[in-house]
């Protein structure tokens, strides 16, 4: 899928080291924090070669079980790479600043905003999108529960809601209502279907416990 950059020269060694540096800031870091740390802690020569728009480096993303080696710009968000380069448009764009949750994906099993995750941060990690919850054409239990409980209206926030629920249930297989609320608090549904979402998450927990 990295067709557009395949024939370009590999990123300079500097690019790789910059990527390594940003990644080392930690999986919880957001773009701003990473940039701040870059200026703050980097040796002077690293500052001199600031990352430029258009500079690319190689990353390996494992998306829904498939390894994707690709060239990315340091500033590209995981959301952009998933949608515009891998064609996985189930993950939605709502705000691009970590407020709405429409872009929620799992990174190593935990819910993360793909808009606030640089593609270079995701290097080497396992990413699961809403498409990755399917088994062939079969919906996963969380998806099924959302469908059956009518836990959406326009459906645009739904993939993010489903991924947040999936993350919650992997960490806590039997959440109570308050835990469901907290687990879903990072995902806005403007259609206001929260009452149905709560029921869907509880139902998904049931389905998962029953191994269905």
């Amino acid at each position: 899928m990295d067709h557009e950059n395949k024939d370009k020269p590999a990123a300079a060694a500097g690019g790789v080291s910059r990527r390594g540096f940003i990644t080392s800031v930690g999986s919880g870091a957001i773009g701003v924090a990473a940039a701040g740390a870059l200026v703050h802690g980097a040796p002077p020569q690293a500052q001199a070669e600031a990352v430029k728009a258009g500079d690319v480096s190689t990353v390996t993303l494992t998306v829904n079980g498939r390894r994707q080696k690709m060239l990315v710009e340091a500033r590209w968000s995981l959301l952009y790479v998933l949608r515009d380069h891998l064609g996985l448009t189930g993950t939605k764009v709502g705000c691009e600043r970590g407020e709405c949750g429409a872009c929620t994906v799992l990174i190593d099993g935990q819910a993360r905003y793909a808009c606030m995750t640089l593609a270079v941060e995701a290097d080497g990690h396992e990413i699961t999108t809403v498409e990755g919850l399917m088994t062939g054409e079969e919906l996963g239990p969380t998806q099924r529960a959302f469908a059956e409980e009518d836990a959406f209206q326009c459906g645009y926030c739904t993939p993010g809601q489903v991924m947040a629920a999936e993350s919650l249930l992997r960490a806590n297989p039997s959440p109570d209502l308050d835990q469901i609320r907290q687990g879903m608090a990072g995902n806005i549904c403007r259609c206001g279907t929260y009452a149905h979402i709560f029921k869907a998450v509880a139902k998904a927990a049931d389905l998962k416990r029953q191994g269905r």
Partner: protein
Amino acid sequence: MKDEELYFWNGPLPETQAPSPAPAPEPWGETKVVGKPVVRIDAYDRVSGSATYPSDVILPDMLHAAILSCPHAHALVKTVDTSAAEKMPGVKAILKDGVVGTNIPWFSGRGGFTSRLFDPHCRYEGDEVAVVAADSIYQAWDAVRAIKVEYDVRPQVTSVADALKPGAPAVRDGGNAIPPGQPYARGDVEAGFKAADVVLEHTFTTPFELQNAMELHGCVAKWDGPRLTIWESTQGVYGVQGGAARALDIPLANIRVIGHYMGGGFGAKLSHGKYTVMAALLAKKTGRPVRLFLSREQVCLSMGNRPGNTITLKAGVKKDGTLVALQSKTVGSGGAYSDGGTGSVDFVIRELYACPNVRCENQSVYINAGPERPFRAPGHPQGAWALEIMLDALAAKIGMDPIALRLKNITLVSQTRNGNPPYTSTGFSDCLKNGAEAFGWAQARARTPAPSHIKRGVGVAGGIWQGGGGSPPSTAIVKLFADGSANLNMGASDIGTGTKTWGVQIVAEELGVPMDRISVEHADTGTTQFATPSGGSKTVPTESPAIRSAALDVKQQLFAMAAEQLKLPAADLELRGAEVVSKTDATKKVGLGQIQAFGRRGLLVGIGYRVPNPPGKVTNPFGAQFAEVEVNTKTGEIKVVRFLAAHDSGRIMNAKMFQNQVSGGITMGIGFGLTEDRVMDRAQLGKLLTVNLHDYKMPTALDAPADKTVLVVDPRDNAFSNTGAKGVGEPATIPTAPAIANAVFHATGLRLTDAPMSPARVLTAIAGQKPAPAGQKGRE
């Protein structure tokens, strides 16, 4: 050999279908499919991620575009220097004022020509200055940032009160105050107040709200020679087609607008935007498809709002609860271009309760802010906020139960329409009575409060929606295939309200075909019939009768064919699976494949038209909502504990989706009542401060109650359409906020009249001070 046989050698010769007269069906009694809580037909697509929304459309060789917005509340664009931006990597085209082909007049709202596509006079922060198309969206934004604009920054005014002050900066030529129309008046308001035992007057304020649908506003545009295809996140493909055709001056026939999925609109996506035209122009100029979606900040700035209002309401009532006079004065602003700042605010006030003496005045003004767009029940939540809190205050003053007061003043006729026509039905009193019983109103009101800083209370509010009865035009087509499967073809968009699903339920009901054997083609100006945008709570009442008629039309044709072959009267026949069977003798039947006339036709096409509602009557949906709240008197926080909504929307189409939609309307009403408030930097730069979803606080999972009950009140209204279905989308959000406010009063004795009821306002009220009014008045 006949001529036709040259082309048709395999099977019988085709015939051209003759049009058939529109059937006048009996009203439904009990239904088998309609109304049932079936899962949406597109649930799989929406939860799997396979549904392709307009923002998901990726075309070969597609460019990405971004708009440069004016950062000032009021400025003249002097120069736009794109020379550096043009040389940047990936940049393919830049449009701005002065570029050939961009001098396009722009029409705002219902008014006439108001500005141009790139108007050098920017009247609000967010006005469009230039647009860039580049190979990637990152490159497009890089170029936007590299454009150098010289602005002549002008004095600005962003609050309604300031705009009306003498010497205020003029937003538009001719001053900020829009000449108001004649005040609405009936009876003699002064005489009414004299006759009243109790007269109360309160000033209410409501917030400017932002629609903020989850999918951003935008589209993808692609040309094939003279023909343009637009994939747009819209509530109405025909509205976008018309707007784009007018702006681009090309034939309607050459614009195909597709809107199969869309991520919410709430009124803000009823028509096209400047982005639609810009995407088309960029695609034309570059010869490549263009995707142009706004940023969330740009949506907050320029993609509509619900005008905030200040409503002074005076009401007079007799001791027995008879309402005798209502007088309202409303001011508000639709921003820099719309004159609709007070639109429909007074409708609820003058219509909902029987009252002989009413006078309503409205004053709309221009301010340097983004233009309003319709927002779920325009004006109504504001009017209900004033009227329904006032009713609660009157009830308290005369020592009457708030529900009893409302029941005392039920009207069966529309007092504001000419000739006082009766409603075809009103379930308002049943909404109040049945709702009160199911909610446990009497018990909850009688409860003795426990001594605690957390106070509990219950409140009620009612509502009516001005629309919701449906009307022409609408055309629907139902096709029946030779194997008994069917297709529904309609122009309406499914904005999340389940339009496709209930459409299929109607076809399944009439034809007896299982839902999984019915497909839908919708929301595409190239392949489906004309429909008005999905808004105004009219999609069900407008489209459902047309769909039913189309299904009946196809059934009538089929039965005529089968009757001839079976030698039975058509009235004796029904469709069971892929067979036409006699109702009286089940042994007499014929498979669809064996009906020879059907075989010659190949496909049966039924057409249904929406006929007008009967004259001399009006149709409106009604509702009553009941809230239980906890008020923390130490923190000022209001927690909505449970909610019950009883709605008369006529016959409902799908119990599951109905419940969901009402529940969602309540969530949105909670936003109006508790959290949402557009705040402008009024005193300094006039910039929007709530420009993202963090600062503009919409209800989240932590704010919405899990305990919501939805009660259906169906008066079986068969007087206005063949389905008896009224709208629900807007009614569901009208009474919510005042029900909460009235519950807060019951809990604490605090009469809050400013929305949203933020913790700061609650604490201020507790401290005995009047809280600061909403954004349009204060925030210095």
